[in-house]
């Protein structure tokens, strides 16, 4: 069994066990009604609790580079899901599906990351607590 095969297996098995983060209220910071897809180049990965942060440069419709940042899960959870500090590296081309922050900044909560090899992996989103239904 080669190393790559093991790593993918670990991603699958671990993901079934540890899917989410409970650090903060998702609804306090992000707007679940504003999905976003960002296709760009990774510039930095911050691997620290309580959440990893992925920084990426994304070209807007006019072709100019915009600097984005996206929150993922806690390193502990992601480690159990098979992630490592090398899972994303500067210059990697990725596509992140997530939702936008409420404050209008170029910030997102990453649900999935499509890696350079084509696999889409769960990013350990904190979105386990969807916004409550409207209160009468």
């Amino acid at each position, binding site marked *: 069994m080669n190393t790559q*095969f093991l790593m993918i297996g670990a991603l699958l098995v671990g993901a079934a066990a540890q899917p989410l983060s*409970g650090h*903060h209220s998702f609804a*306090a910071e992000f707007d679940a009604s504003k999905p976003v897809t960002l296709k760009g180049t990774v510039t930095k990965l911050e691997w*620290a609790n*309580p959440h990893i942060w992925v920084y990426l440069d994304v070209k807007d419709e006019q072709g100019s580079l915009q600097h984005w940042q996206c929150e993922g899960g806690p390193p502990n*959870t992601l480690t159990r899901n098979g992630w490592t500090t090398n899972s994303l590296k500067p210059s990697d081309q990725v596509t992140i599906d997530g939702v936008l922050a409420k404050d209008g900044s170029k910030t997102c909560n990453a649900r999935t990351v499509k890696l350079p090899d084509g696999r889409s992996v769960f990013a350990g989103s904190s979105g386990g607590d969807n916004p409550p239904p409207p209160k009468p």
Partner: protein
Amino acid sequence: MKKYFAVSLVAALAMGVVVPLLAAGQQEFRPPAGPTPRTPSGKVDFSGVWQKPYVPDMTKSGKDQQGLAELPFTPWGEAEWKKYDAAEGDYTGACLPFGMTRSVNTPEPMQIMQSDRYFAFLFEQNSWFAVVPIDGRPHRTGIPTWFGDSVGHWEGDTLVLDTSNFNGKTRLDTIGHPHSTELHLIQRFSRPDLGHISYEITVDDPKTFTRPWKNTRTFTLRPDWEMMEYSCEENNKSLWEGRIKVPKYPK
């Protein structure tokens, strides 16, 4: 082992989808089988690293957990629930202590260590702990705290932890169900076999609810996991950049 990984890989690639999301349910961790372990003194031994279901909303039910859909709010409790907005202040996002219920609710594992005198929760979430005397001593009195004051006793093979004296600064769950300083929790632990804990928590708070209510859960032994350090403050960008606010508590 080879077959296990091979099946996972083939299934995922064949579907061409987000791997871990759809893998959930396809691969079920199986804890070791065996009889209920006991301490040298004959008590049920709850020691181990435990996987808990993530319970961001205690009114919902899901895998390994049963909630109560309609909470029996008092008028005060209903008003507290209606006015809650985490965007105005999110104490866990600010790395303040989660308190007892939200620590147990987290998806991060917890380790239990136990002697004849003490039962210790070691929560991975923010590396917090709670130590509970189980030797029959009464509740301490003193300044109310985030985790409250817990004591435990045995009812046959069930360990019952009783917690009160909360400071009222926490919420019961991530979505923000309220409680008051009159909160009284009863947590019941039993271990039907080596691999599982049956857990029941009763929320008793006469200021917030007209009657006590329960959640039940199953915890799974994870001998393949070790507890990891979790510093909430290390990179809490969301707080530093103003997207999460610290709640304003009366002083």
